[in-house]
């Protein structure tokens, strides 16, 4: 039978990465000196080694063996763990990850790093030479011994042998697999019947085996019972080595005479080539699978509780369905109430089902937060700053896709906090602050969104420095008066960097603008709060999922549009005194200090509409890319969650529209792409201006 092992490889990879994460986070918490922590690190390494060996990733096995040995020494108390050991183990974890990733992607890896780390590990372990002692699964390709030996075996088991689950009969059948076996049971050890215990074994055996097996092969059969028996293995007759081929011939001849031996012999002969073919097939399969895993968009591990709740809901839905269909079979108007309550129940079921299905894609944000203890640990060594990392709300759940895409922006924000936020220890002491700085990561739900906060207790953002840099870069006019939040927003302008020197931590000014763009592409936004001397806080606001959004339904003419709630600043009825017409065609609305351009949706989308005059009209003020605009609509309808459907599947991308959804009545409504609409409006205005210029030139 051939078992295709490759199907278990994705699962092995997944748990290996989990194991590595556990090793890393445990190593970072090791200062406590807790033995249980060491144990769990050891276990993780041990599992990875075992799995890697089984699935044929020998380089992983070899490397992990060294790590495991070091951990074993620590675990057994043979070695006191030093900070240097911890660092080495952390680097080793990186190496293991490198190797496993390379195995997954069937790609090359940084061999120098592995060699170097291997060397360091060996030095630490005081092992000389390459790790040649590691046991890699040896196939049964032991060189064949001269055939046709006769073995005499005396086997006297201890009385309690069967109590370990061993069965003499099975031992004998294993021996019979090696050659021709004859056995003689001896009962001389049998006690008087009154002293006999039914659970004990009193028989011993004399066996003779004609086989080409070595003594070692025979001993291996008795491996598990060695200590519970008296075992003597004696070779009775040695065939001359020179005539080994002859003996084989004679064996074969005798085989043809004796059908029983013939069976076992042919089995032995054919077995090896067959297994060789199998294993080469296996390699092919594993390779195929590797490419498969690479393309795989990834699996999701779902807690059994979530699946159970789905199944329960499914059950309820089925009950409701059968109730309704029965009602439909012979419906009378008197049963209307029953129908109504049935439909209510259906609504409830559907809602719960939807929630549960969405929950399947939700993972705790700890998946994204996990990498930060290590990151901060490394950064604090690199910068010489003492930093505590506080993580809160790790269990807050977030859509898998959002999680995958928010990782990099968060890393950048944390690096930024270490680099620009936290002051050096000297400066902190001089300012009367605790010597070590604190960076806090916090996540929580608010409405339909998740908020992630990255805050530090550092020096805060230097408003003047930011402003003068922005003026220098021509991002703002020198005379401009800006609010704090407007100044902080400058940090996200492309090409802006306040670091006096480019450090290798937060890079060279590319970054914050990319961070903002990434967050926006997820339908989220980022805000900054900062107080001089006290610290800064970056607040990332993200939708929980990309599949659903909270929307405000609005009407324009006969069409219904959905404005993502996250973009809405406020809705208001336009008052005449705040309306200003500028440069001929543009309408601005004064909202406190801001002049907000008005975009009439009907104009942008070329639709018939009820309201074309801004005065008294409904304006939905939305914000994107720091730009506020007022969308002119006919009517504000309900707010509701909508499921986002792509227009691209069957049609194409539409300017100003991010997707569509199906409303309760089955009709389709378009979801507005606010940044896209602003871009459209700006483009139109520009075109119009160009036309005017052209006309002006003609006149």
């Amino acid at each position, binding site marked *: 039978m051939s078992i295709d092992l490759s199907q278990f490889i994705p699962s092995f990879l997944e748990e290996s990465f989990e194991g590595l994460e556990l090793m890393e986070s445990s190593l970072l918490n090791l200062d406590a000196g807790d033995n249980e922590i060491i144990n769990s690190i050891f276990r993780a390494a041990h599992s990875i080694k075992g799995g890697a060996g089984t699935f044929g990733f020998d380089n992983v096995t070899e490397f992990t063996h060294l790590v495991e040995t070091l951990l074993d020494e620590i675990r057994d108390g043979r070695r006191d763990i030093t900070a240097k050991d911890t660092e080495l183990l952390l680097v080793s974890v990186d190496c293991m990850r490198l190797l496993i990733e390379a195995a997954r992607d069937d790609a090359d890896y940084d061999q120098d790093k592995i060699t170097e780390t291997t060397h360091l590990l060996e030095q630490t372990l005081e092992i000389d030479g390459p790790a040649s002692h590691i046991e890699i699964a040896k196939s049964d390709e032991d060189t064949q011994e001269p055939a046709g030996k006769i073995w005499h075996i005396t086997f006297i088991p201890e009385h309690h042998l069967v109590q370990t689950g061993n069965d003499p009969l099975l031992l004998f059948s294993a021996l019979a697999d090696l050659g021709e076996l004859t056995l003689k049971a001896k009962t001389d050890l049998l006690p008087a019947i009154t002293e006999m215990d039914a659970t004990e074994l009193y028989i011993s055996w004399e066996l003779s085996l004609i086989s080409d097996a070595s003594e070692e092969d025979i001993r291996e059969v008795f491996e598990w019972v060695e200590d519970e028996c008296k075992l003597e293995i004696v070779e009775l007759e040695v065939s001359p080595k020179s005539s080994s081929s002859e003996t084989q011939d004679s064996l074969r001849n005798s085989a043809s005479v004796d059908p029983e031996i013939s069976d076992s012999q042919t089995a032995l002969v054919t077995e090896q080539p067959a297994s060789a073919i199998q294993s080469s097939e296996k390699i092919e399969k594993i390779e195929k699978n590797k490419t498969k895993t690479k393309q795989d968009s990834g699996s999701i591990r779902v807690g059994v509780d979530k699946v159970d709740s789905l199944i329960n809901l499914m059950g309820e839905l089925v009950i409701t369905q059968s109730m309704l269909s029965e009602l439909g079979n012979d419906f009378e108007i008197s049963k209307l109430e029953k129908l109504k309550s049935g439909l209510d129940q259906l609504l409830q079921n559907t809602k719960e089902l939807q929630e549960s299905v969405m929950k399947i894609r939700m993972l705790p944000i700890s998946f994204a937060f996990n990498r930060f203890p290590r990151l901060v640990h490394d950064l604090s060594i690199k910068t010489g700053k003492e930093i505590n990392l506080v993580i809160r709300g790790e269990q807050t759940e977030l859509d898998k896709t959002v999680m995958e895409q928010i990782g990099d922006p968060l890393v950048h924000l944390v690096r930024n906090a270490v680099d620009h936020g936290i002051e050096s220890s000297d400066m902190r002491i001089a300012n009367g602050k605790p010597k070590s700085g604190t960076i806090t990561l916090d996540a929580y739900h608010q409405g339909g969104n998740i908020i992630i906060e990255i805050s530090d207790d550092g020096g805060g953002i230097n408003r003047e420095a930011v402003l003068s840099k922005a003026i220098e870069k021509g991002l703002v006019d020198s005379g401009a008066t800006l609010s704090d939040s407007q100044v902080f927003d400058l940090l996200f302008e492309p090409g802006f960097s306040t670091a006096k020197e480019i450090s290798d931590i937060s890079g060279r000014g590319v970054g914050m603008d990319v961070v903002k763009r990434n967050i926006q592409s997820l339908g989220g936004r980022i805000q900054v709060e900062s107080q001089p001397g006290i610290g800064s806080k970056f607040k990332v606001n993200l939708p929980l999922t990309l599949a659903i959004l909270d929307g405000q339904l609005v009407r324009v003419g006969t069409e219904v549009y959905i404005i993502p709630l996250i973009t809405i600043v406020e809705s208001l009825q336009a008052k005449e005194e705040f309306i200003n017409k500028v440069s001929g065609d543009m309408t601005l609305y004064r909202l406190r200090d801001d002049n907000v351009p008005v975009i009439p949706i009907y104009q942008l*989308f070329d639709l018939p509409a009820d309201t074309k005059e801004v005065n008294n009209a409904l304006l939905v003020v939305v914000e994107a890319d720091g730009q506020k605009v007022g969308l002119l609509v006919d009517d504000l309808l309900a707010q509701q969650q909508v499921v986002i459907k792509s*227009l691209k*599947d*069957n*049609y194409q991308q*539409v300017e*100003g*529209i991010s997707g569509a959804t*199906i409303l309760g009545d089955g009709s*389709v409504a378009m979801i507005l792409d606010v940044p896209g609409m602003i871009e459209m409006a700006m483009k139109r205005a520009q075109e119009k201006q160009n036309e005017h210029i052209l006309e002006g030139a003609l006149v």
Partner: protein
Amino acid sequence: MDIQALAKDIPEQGEYSLEGIDFITSGKQYLTFLLGEEQYAVDILCVEEIRSWEQPTVIPNAPKYVKGVINMRGIIVPIIDLRLKFNIGQATYSDITVVIVLTVEIEDQSRTIGFVVDAVSDVLNAEDNEIKNSPYFGGCVPQSCIDGLINVGAKVVTLLNVETLQLIEKHKVD
């Protein structure tokens, strides 16, 4: 069978010549429909469903012949009026106006689009060798959309290429 002799009879252009040599093909079924007074046909295997006209949701700034999108069992399906697209007949909408929803696989992706026509007329059986090359004399329908002509009695049915139809909205102005 004398393939050489057969090949002589085959017109030089068009897919028919290739299909023609391959004699084993059995007939295919086509759904025929009306645009104005003219008969058109599409491969019946591509037809997802035939539905009556309903007012779709407008797609902002789309070309005139793209009437909008509808919800077909949870899928967003664009609706294209072939009469407007090909400029044939009058684009009027009534209870008997019909939408033929077609699905094709293009580069591993299935695309579903609804096409507004005046009426569905019949299912037509035609062998591949009954499909004649369409002469190129201009006309409203782009040549790339036409797979050939089928004679039905004295009338002629234009066989449309569903794949090119599906890509119709990619090139807004032909």
